């Protein structure tokens, strides 16, 4: 071969960033990590617009229409996207981890690269959602009074508050998916089942506690008092717990085939 390759071989390791390489590895197939969610998003939006158009066309009475549009603010249409991000979080870790180790990446570098990827994607999709929310408001609900990105759960803050809320929500779902995948990578199906078993028991126990202490109004009140900015801040708690737990679990995981 050429002399350059020979000298390259002889040269000591270049300190290229493995973490950056892991980010690129996650994004190498852009079609499935960015393209598919955008297509799903576009499809859901289109279906919703069609439904809003049907409502607008079939309800003629003005007060009935106002009633219907009042109901639209409870739209959960965008929820699919958040779940899809959780799936990406699961697949991104469980499927890419064995390959990254095959490429001689340490678990630490893999995890940091993966976390960086999730932050990038959360910011990206947070921005997309914010943009669509702004358009939704500006066009009076796509000209039909529909609500998908300004649904009641997302509050009624200004655009950057929306952006933070969307981004924080995406982050949570990515890292929650990461924990599930880390548990699966380390303890396989048994571990995953035990994890969901414990999680279910915990959530039911909390619901039980809230019921017997008659504190559901306080729970509701808590959401109202904190508002969107408070929720963003609080959501970081489970997100960070997930991120740290994910690393703790994956640190001792072995890819099996």
């Amino acid at each position, binding site marked *: 071969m050429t002399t350059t390759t020979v000298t390259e071989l002889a040269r000591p390791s270049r300190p290229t960033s493995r973490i950056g390489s892991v980010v690129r590895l996650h994004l*190498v197939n852009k079609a499935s990590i960015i393209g598919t969610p955008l297509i799903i998003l576009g499809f859901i939006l289109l279906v919703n617009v069609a439904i809003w158009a049907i409502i607008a066309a079939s309800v003629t009475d003005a007060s009935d229409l106002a009633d219907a549009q009042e109901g639209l603010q409870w739209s959960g249409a965008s929820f699919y996207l958040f779940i899809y991000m959780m799936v990406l979080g699961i697949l991104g870790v469980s499927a890419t981890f064995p390959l990254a180790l095959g490429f001689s990446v340490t678990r630490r570098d893999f995890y940091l690269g993966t976390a960086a990827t999730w932050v990038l994607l959360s910011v990206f999709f947070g921005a997309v959602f914010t943009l669509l929310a702004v358009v939704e408001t500006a066009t009076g609900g796509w000209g039909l009074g529909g609500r998908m990105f300004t649904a009641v759960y997302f509050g009624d803050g200004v655009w950057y508050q929306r952006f933070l809320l969307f981004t924080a929500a995406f982050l949570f779902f990515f890292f929650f998916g990461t924990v599930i995948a880390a548990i699966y990578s380390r303890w396989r199906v048994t571990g995953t089942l035990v994890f969901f078993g414990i999680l279910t028991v915990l959530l039911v126990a909390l619901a039980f506690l809230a019921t017997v202490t008659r504190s559901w109004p306080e729970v509701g009140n808590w959401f109202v008092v904190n508002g969107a900015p408070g929720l963003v801040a609080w959501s970081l708690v489970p997100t960070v717990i997930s991120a740290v737990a994910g690393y703790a679990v994956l640190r001792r995981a072995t890819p099996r085939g």
Partner: protein
Amino acid sequence: MTAAVEVSGLTKRFGSTTAVNEATFTVEENTIHGLLGRNGAGKTTLMQLITGQDFATSGSIRIFGEHPVENSGVLRRVCFIKESQKYPDDFKPKHVFESAPWFFENWDAELAARLIEDFRLPVNRRIKKLSRGQTSAVGVIVGLASRAPLTFFDEPYLGLDAVARQIFYDRLLEDYAEHPRTIILSTHLIDEVSSLLEHVIVIDDGRIIIDQDSDSLRGSATTVVGTGTAVESFIAGHEVLHLDRIGGLASATIGQLTPAERAAATTAGLELTPVSLQQLIVRRTGLATELEKSA
């Protein structure tokens, strides 16, 4: 010479099974080593331990003098695409070859392109849908083109047809001559690779049972063929690894012979033939008809 890999007292247990049992050996830099053994003997586990993909129960491992586990500095000099390597579901070979250079700094894209052509690998088909041999080819191409100072090939022949096997064999030797590096090749198809190997490590049931230079290993036994009586009188007093009789003829595999003994054999009208590495390992270990069957 310096050591690329030093393993000492290495043990790996999974519950009650011991996959690797007190393994101790050294791999010198810039050699081609064969890691041979039956299916399930512990080859893959051993390589996963050496490359920090798995954690040892006890014992020590050094690659280029350092601990491999979570050691980015030393792992980046290693390439190990295992036979059962998992790829993301939506991955096509082109994604693997696009991303591999980000991790292997000596990556030779030209060589990769040539190998893709040689193996006629469809780079735009999902890896899930590739045949066994095509999937092997993906790993083989990464292993060759990465030019990692320590490269593992895990059952590279699995599913490859005769032409593809010859291509692998030729390209490996060609590239190894130009870019010397340490290569560890695991397989249960011993005869296919025997001429490549400079050193042989045989693992059985988790234990290292042979760790020897392949030339000296080959010279360590000879097959004596002739009439039954002549063979029998000749082999008396020798270590007999194997004896076959067909009609009035006999063929015996025996230990190393001195030049004087060789001359004596020839005078007695006996024919001396070298023993293939595979036969030798099978005889020496009493290992298994299974090895022969699977070959």
